[in-house]
C-alpha cells in the first residue's frame, strides 16, 4: 500500500525505524492491521514474524481494532472503595464486553486503569479525554449516551 510505503520511507526504510513506523500506522488506523504488518515487512525486506514480534512485545501496540471511544474505568484505591468495580460490572453487562474488549458495533473499548489522579471525584470514569466523576451505576449509562 502506498501510504505505508510513505511512512516506511519517512524513517529511512530501515529496520531501526520499525517502532516509529508502527506508531504512525497505528495512529492512522487505530490499530495494526495484518496487511499493514505484512506490507511493512515487505517494504523493509524483513520477515513478517520480526514485525509481529515487536508489535506484540509492546503493550502500546494493538493488533485488534479499537472502538471509536475509549472508556477507562478507574479501579484505584479510592475509586475501588467508592464502588468502581460495580461501575465496571455495569458497563460490562450493558455493553456486553469484558474489560479490554471492544463492543461489536465498534463504539466503545472498555479498559481499567489504576488511578487517574483525581481521587476526590471517585469513582471516576474517563471517556476519551473527558473525566466523569462521582458516578454510580445509573449515571454512567446516562453519560455514555453523549458518545456516538
Amino acid at each position, binding site marked *: 500500500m502506498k501510504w505505508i510505503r510513505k511512512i516506511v520511507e519517512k524513517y529511512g526504510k530501515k529496520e531501526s525505524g520499525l517502532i516509529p513506523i508502527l506508531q504512525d500506522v497505528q495512529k492512522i488506523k487505530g490499530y495494526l492491521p495484518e496487511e499493514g504488518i505484512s506490507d511493512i515487512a515487505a517494504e523493509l525486506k524483513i*520477515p513478517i*514474524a520480526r514485525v509481529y*514480534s515487536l508489535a*506484540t512485545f509492546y503493550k502500546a501496540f494493538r493488533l485488534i481494532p479499537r472502538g471509536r471511544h475509549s472508556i477507562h474505568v478507574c479501579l484505584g484505591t479510592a475509586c475501588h472503595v467508592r464502588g468502581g468495580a460495580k461501575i465496571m460490572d455495569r458497563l460490562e453487562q450493558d455493553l456486553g464486553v469484558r474489560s479490554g474488549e471492544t463492543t461489536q458495533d465498534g463504539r466503545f473499548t472498555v479498559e481499567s486503569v489504576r488511578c487517574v489522579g483525581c481521587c476526590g471525584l471517585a469513582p471516576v470514569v474517563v471517556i476519551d479525554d473527558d473525566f466523569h466523576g462521582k458516578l454510580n451505576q445509573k449515571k454512567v449509562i446516562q453519560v455514555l449516551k453523549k458518545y456516538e
Partner: protein
Amino acid sequence: MAITLKIDNKEIKAKTGMSVLEAARQADIYIPTLCHHPQLNPSGSCRLCIVEIKGVRGYPTACTIPAEEGMVVQTNTQRLRSLRCQILELILSEHPYTCLVCDKREGCDEWMGTIRKVGITTSCQTCPKSGACELQNLVQYLGIEEIAFPINYRGYPVEQKDPFFDRDYNLCILCGRCVRVCNEVRYNGTLNFHYRGDRTVVGTAFGKSHLEVGCAFCGACVDVCPTGALAGKADKWEGCSEQTQHSICPYCAVGCSLDYHLRGNRIIKSVPAQGKSPNQGQVCVRGRFAVADLVNHPTRLKKPLVKRNKQWIETSWEEALDRIAEQFVRYRGDGFGLVVSPNNTVEDAYVLQKFGRVAMQSRHLAVSSPFAHSRWVDSLVEIEKIHPPHTVTLGDIDQASLILVWGGDLSVSHPIAALRVKQAVHRGAKLIVIDPRKTKLAELADMHLQPNPVDDSLLLSGLMKLIFENRSDPSLSGPQSPEWNDLTNKLKKVNLSLIEEKTGIPRNQMEELVDLLFHHQRILILVGSGLALQASASNGLFGLFNLSVVLKHAKMVPIVGESNLAGCLEMGCMSGLLPGLISVNEESARKKFEKSWGLSIQGERSYDFTELVQQIEGGKIKTLYVTGEIPPTDILKKCHYIVVQSVFRPEWADWADVLLPAAHPAEIDGTVVNFEKRLQRLRRIHRQTGLSKPDWWICSQIAQKMGFSGFSYKKSSDILNEIHSIVPRYSGLIPSKIKEKGLFLLDFKSNQKKKSCSIFHFDVAIRNHEKPKGYPYTLIIDVGISHFRNASLIEKVSGMERIGSEGKVEIHPKDAERLHVSTGECVQIKSNNGFQFEGPVIVTDRIPQKSLYLLLDKKSPHVLECFKGNIHFVKIKKVADDSDCR
C-alpha cells in the same frame, strides 16, 4: 594470534576472537550451556554458562565474553554451582519436569515400558526427547532433586496440523535456538519470539500455521531444539537412536552429507552431518524428512516377481534371472533399450552400460532424466573437453562478490545451493536473478530481470553485444582466436532494439547488468533448470560459458538434475558416449574399451531418453531393461519384453514382464557424483529390505547367466577398480582415497590439452517466437525433482503432498480474473502443437501476465512431451466441472 589465559587454574592457549566458552571447550573444560549451539551466534540468554573472571564484576556468560590475554577464569565455584541450580530451577518451573526429578528414574531404563496415568506433557513416557534431552543431562549434572519454585504449566495446545514436525511449546524453554537458526542460518524468518514476560512464546506471525507462512520445513529448528518442544512427526516415537552412520542424501545434485540415525536395524531419521561438505550442517526438507520414510516404506519391492498368465508370482532370484537371461539372449542387438535411473550409483551405471553395450550389443542407452537430452549433455561434454573447467564448489558461492542465477528456481530444485546464495547475499554479495518468474531468490536479488520465456539466447546476445561494443576494456581484446573474431562479427549485426522488443528487457536494464558484471572481480554464474529445459539450451549454455570467459574472473556451473545424473553421464549411460565422457566416434579410445571388454561396441549416437521411448511406438525398440523411471505411457504395451528393476513397482507394471527389487542407496556401498563433480561415497548402513539387491549385482548376474565373462564382480569396489584401470579420465583415481569429503573428478582428469580462453560457437540469430493466433499464453515448464527412482516423494512420504506445487498451473491474478478462476479451480491448457494438460491453478503474482508456469512431477504422463522443449504457446480455459481435477 594466540593468547594464553587461565581457566580453572589451567594454562590454556586460545585464538583471538574465541569466546571463553570456546576456549574452555577446546581444553576439555565443561561449562554447562543450553542456548549455545556451535552453528549459531551466541545469545547469552540461558545464563547457565556464567563464570567468574578476575577483575570483572558479576558473573558474565562465557559464551558471549571474548577470551583475552591473561584472563583468570573460574567455571565451577560453589557460588556458580548454586546460581546455576537456581537458574535451571527457574527454567524448569515452566517445563513439565516430572521425568527430570523423578525418584524412579534410576529404574526407568529397566521399566521403560510402564504406562503411567499422567497428562500429555508431564511425563517422561510422553516426551519424544526422553533420553536425548539436554535438560535431563543438565539436571543430572547439577544434581537437582527438587524445585523450589511454583510450577507454571502454560497449557498451550500441541500444534500438530503442519506436516513433518509437531510443536509442543509447553516444553519450550525459550533458549531461542530455533529462532536464531531460522533467522541467522536459514534466513527463512518463519519463527520469532512473540509477546513478552511469562507470556513469551516462540511462533509464527499471527499464530498462523507453518504452511500458511511459507515455512520451508527444512527442519533446522527441530535439530537444534534441546528439548522435546519440536519433534519430527515420523521419528518422534521411534525412540532414541542407538547409532549414527554417515552417508549421502539420495535426492538432488547437491549430494548433502547426512547422518542416519538407527535403532536396531531400522533407520529412524536422517539429519544433516555437522560441519561436513558440501552442505555444512544444513539440509532441506527432502533430506531431513523424506529419507527414512522411503527406506522403510511398506510398498517397497521385496521379492523378484515374474508374470505368469497375467498374474504376478513371487519367485527366487535364481528363477527370475534364468528367465530374463533366456529372453534377453533372444533380443540381443538393436532392438534392446536400456533406461538407467539418474539415482543409480556410478558403479551401477558402469555395469549397466557395459551390459547394454557388450552383452546386449545395443547402442540404445539413456538416463531417464529431464536434463539428459542430447542438446544439453552434448554441450556440457564439449565445454569440458575443449576447455576443461575448474572445479566449482558450493564454497565458491561464499567467495563470490556477484552471483548470477540464470533460470530456474534453485530454492525448490536444489534448496541447499539456494541457501548458500542467500547466506552470501546476507554477507554482502550482490545477486542478479534472471528468470521470468519471481522466484524466492529473486525476492532477495539486487536485480531481477524477467525476460520473456522461450529463448534466453536472445538476452544473452544483447548482453554480449553491450559487453563487446560499448566497452573499450583492454582486457577484453585478449585472445584473438577465429571463434572470437566470428563472435565479434556476429554481434555487430545484432539489433539491440529488436532484442529489447523480443525479450521485454529495456536497454538500460541490460546496461545496468553489464555495469555490475564489470565492477565485480569474483563472479559466479549458476545455471538452473529454466535454461536447461529450453529448446535452445545448448546455445544458451555456450553463451553463458562465453560470458564467463569474457569476464575473466567469472566461473560458471550448472546446478541441475538428480543425485547422480552427472555420474551416470560420466559412466556413459547415453547413446554415443563412453565412460569418461568419450565419444564412441573416437576410434582409438573405443578400441581400448573393446579390448578390455572383449567384444565390439555398437557405435553412433542413436536416441536420447524421450526419443528412445518414442522408438518403441515405431517398433524399433522391442525389449526394455529399466532401472529408471518411465512415465506411464500407452506406448510401453507395444514392447515385447520389459524388465523393471527398481525400489518400487511402477504404475505401468501391467506391461512389464519381470519386476526385480533393487536396494535403496542406504542399503548399498557405492559412489555418486554431484553437480560439483565431487565423487562421494555412499555407505551401506541398513540391511537390504527383503530380497532386494544392488543394481550392479542384478545386472551382472543376468550377464553371467547369459554366458558373458567380465561381469564377475564380488563387491562394488571391484567395479570402481575396473573403472580406475580402463577409463582414462579415472586413471588418477585411487578408490581408497574417497573419504567423507569425496574427491573432485576435475582434479584428476587426464592430461587434456587446455586451450586458453577458447570460446564457443554462439548463435545470435533471432528465431521467430511469435505467438500463433489463438494461443495468447506462454507456458514455462519445469520438472520437479521430488522424486527417487520410480517413486514420487509426494505419494510416498506423508506431508510432501502439502508443500509441493507439482501438477499445478501458476497464473497471474489479472489473467485469473479474466478467466474467472481462483486458486484450486481446474483449467485446461492446449498448445498449438498438440500438448494438452488439465490441472488446478495457483493464482500468484510470481508469474508475469500472459505467462503460465507448470511444475510437472516426473511421473506425469505429460513429462515425455515436455522434455522436448518445444511447447511454448498455449490457450487456457476454465473447466466447468472440476470434479476430475486433482
